[in-house]
C-alpha cells in the first residue's frame, strides 16, 4: 500500500512542477525544491543501488577497488554469480523461498479475499474491530509476531516445519490482500451481485462470474504483496525455520555472519531485480484496473 501511495504522488508531481515559475526568486525556490527531492531519492536508493556494481567485484571485498573506480574491465567479474549458482545451499534456499512463498501466497490470497468480501457486506457486524484484527500483523513488530508464532507453533509441533513457516508467512501476508481487495471492492456496485441473484445465480457462481473478474486486479496485486512479504521475510524464519527451511534471506543472514563473501551481493542484486519486476507487475495491474472502470 505504501508503494501505491508513493507511486501516486510521483505520478502527479511533474505536472505541478511544470507550472513554470516566472520571477527569479520563484525559479530559485523551484530548483531548490527539485534538488531537495532529488537528494531524498538518492538517500533512499543509494544504499540499495551501491550493491549492484559491488556484486561484480573481482576481489573478495565489500568496497570499490582502485581498478573498479578506474573502470578497468579486469576489476569486474561474474565470479560471485558463478559461486551462488554452483553452491547447492543457495539453490536449496531458492527452492524453499519459492515453495514457501507460493504456498503462503495462496493461503493469504484466499483468506484475505474472503475476509474482504465479508467485510464489504453491509450485514457484517463490528466491521472496524474485525478489520483492525485482520490488519494487526502488518503493524505489530515482526519480532513480536515471530516470537508468538514460535511459541504457539512449537506447542502444536509445527515449529521447524515447512507448514509452520507457510502459515506464519500467510498470516503476515493476509493484511495486504485484505487491504487491496477492500480498496477494489469500494468501487464495486452492490447492485451487480443483486442483479446476479435476481437472474438466478447462487453465491458461488456470482463470485466466480461477477465479483472475481471485476476485483481480479486487486486480488492479484494483493497476492504479489503477500508473496513479496514472504520472499523478504527473515525474522520469522530465524525463529521458526530449521536447517531444512532455509530461505534466501535466511541464507544471506548466515552468509554475512559466517563466510563473509560478496556472493550475497550477487544474491542481493538478483533480489533487487526481482522486486523491480514485482513492482512493475503491480503497477501494470493497477493501471489495467483503473482503465476498466
Amino acid at each position, binding site marked *: 500500500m505504501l508503494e501505491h501511495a508513493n507511486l501516486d504522488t510521483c505520478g502527479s508531481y511533474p505536472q505541478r512542477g511544470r507550472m513554470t515559475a516566472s520571477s527569479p526568486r520563484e525559479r530559485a525556490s523551484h530548483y531548490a525544491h527539485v534538488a531537495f527531492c532529488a537528494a531524498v531519492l538518492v538517500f533512499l536508493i543509494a544504499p540499495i543501488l551501491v550493491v549492484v556494481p559491488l556484486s561484480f567485484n573481482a576481489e573478495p571485498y565489500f568496497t570499490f577497488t582502485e581498478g573498479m573506480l578506474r573502470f578497468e574491465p579486469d576489476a569486474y567479474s561474474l565470479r560471485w554469480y558463478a559461486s551462488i549458482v554452483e553452491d547447492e545451499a543457495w539453490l536449496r534456499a531458492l527452492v524453499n523461498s519459492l515453495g514457501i512463498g507460493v504456498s503462503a501466497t495462496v493461503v493469504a490470497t484466499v483468506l484475505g479475499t474472503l475476509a474482504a468480501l465479508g467485510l464489504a457486506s453491509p450485514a457484517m457486524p463490528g466491521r472496524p474491530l474485525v478489520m483492525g484484527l485482520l490488519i494487526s500483523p502488518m503493524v505489530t513488530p515482526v519480532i513480536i509476531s515471530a516470537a508468538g508464532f514460535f511459541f504457539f507453533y512449537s506447542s502444536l509441533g509445527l515449529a521447524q516445519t515447512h507448514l509452520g513457516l507457510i502459515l506464519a508467512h500467510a498470516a503476515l501476508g493476509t493484511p495486504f490482500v485484505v487491504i487491496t481487495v477492500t480498496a477494489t471492492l469500494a468501487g464495486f456496485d452492490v447492485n451487480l451481485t443483486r442483479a446476479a441473484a435476481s437472474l*438466478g445465480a447462487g453465491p458461488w457462481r456470482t463470485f466466480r462470474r461477477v465479483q472475481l473478474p471485476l476485483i481480479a486486479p486487486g486480488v492479484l496485486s494483493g497476492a504479489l504483496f503477500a508473496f513479496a512479504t514472504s520472499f523478504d521475510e527473515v525474522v520469522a524464519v530465524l525463529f521458526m525455520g530449521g536447517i531444512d527451511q532455509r530461505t534466501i534471506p535466511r541464507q544471506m543472514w548466515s552468509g554475512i555472519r559466517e563466510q563473509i563473501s560478496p556472493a550475497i551481493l550477487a544474491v542481493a542484486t538478483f533480489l533487487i531485480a526481482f522486486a523491480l519486476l514485482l513492482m512493475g507487475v503491480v503497477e501494470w495491474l493497477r493501471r489495467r484496473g483503473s482503465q476498466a472502470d
Partner: protein
Amino acid sequence: MNAGTNAYVEFEGVHKSYDGETEVVRDLHLSVQEGEFLTLLGPSGSGKTTCLMMLAGFEAPTRGAIRLGGRTIHDVPPRQRDIGMVFQNYALFPHLTVGENLRFPLEVRGMDKAVAAERVRDAMRLVRLEGFEARRPGELSGGQQQRVAIARALVFEPRLVLMDEPLGALDRRLREEMQFEIRRIQRTLGVTVIYVTHDQQEAMVMSDRVAVFNRGRIEQVAAPEVLYEEPERPFVATFIGDNNLLRGEVVDVDGDYCQVDIGEHTITAFLVSPRAVGDTVVLAVRPERIGLADEPGTYGNEFVVPISDVIFLGDHLLVRATMGEQGDFVVKIPNIVGHGAVLPGDRVRIGWTATDCRALVPDED
C-alpha cells in the same frame, strides 16, 4: 383494486423499518393482477425502492406478508423468486458482452446452448438491438444499455418484472421513446410489471394502475384517469397534475354535496367521503375546470376576484387570482378569449360547477 384471491402479487399489512425506529413503509396493502402494469409513484424517499427490494428479496419486511402467486415468499431467497429486475443504474456486468449478459440467466438455468442462443436473439430483437451482442455495456449509449437491462430481465421469461426508475438517467426525448417501448414490450409478452418512478407524467403514460406513495403509505391506487379526475386525498390531488386547494369548514351536507365556508365565500362541493357539519375539508379544483363567467349564473359557484398576474402560454393563459385569505389561485383559460382579454388588476367573475370541486379529508401532518 379489490384484493381478490387471484391477485398475483400481494402486500398485506407490510411494514418496514431499517433502523427499528422510523418506518419507511407503513401498513402497505397492495395487490397486483397478472399481466398488469402497475406503477409506484411518489416523491423521493417515500419508500418505493424499499417495496421493490422487499418483493425481490433483498430486504425483509419488518411486519406483514408478501405473497407471490398465492404463496408467501419470505423464506424464498432472491435467486429462486424468478423475478426479473431492472435496476436504476442498469447493473449490467461490465466485463461481459451484451450477449453474455443475456446468456447469464440462461446458463444459470442450465439451458441448452442452441436454445439459449435463440432466446438471446429473440430478446435482442424485442428491444431492437440486433447486432449489438458482441459489444461491452461500456460501448453502448445510455438508452441502449437501458434496453439491454430490460432484455436481460425478460430473457429468462419471468412472470414478474420489477423496474426501478429505469429511465431516470435519460434525456426527455429518449425517455418518451423508451416509455413507449417498455409499454409495447409489456403488452407483447403479457408479463406483469411493477414500475417505479417519481415522474407523474411517466406514470400516467405507461400504467394500467398507479399507486401513489407518500411517506411510506399508499394514498390511492387507481387508473391514471381516475387519479386525475377523482383524487381522494389532497396529496394525490396536487401530485397528479395541478390543483387549487382551499381549506374550509362544512356548514351543510345534502346527499353527495356539501356547503363549505372558506372565509369570504361559501362553496358547493362534491363530498368524496362522508363528512359531518363542522368538519374541516380541503376543496380541490383543477385550474382548467375554472372558467370566466361573462354573465352571472353560468356556474354553480361564482366569485368576483382580483387578478394579480396573467401569463401568456400560447394555447392557454395562466391567470393568477387572489381568493381572500386563502391566497393565490390559478385559473387556466384556453386561448379563445385572446391575449389581453384579462389583465392584471382587473376584477373578474370566475366560477366552476359543484361536481368539479371535490371536498377531501385533509392530509394528517
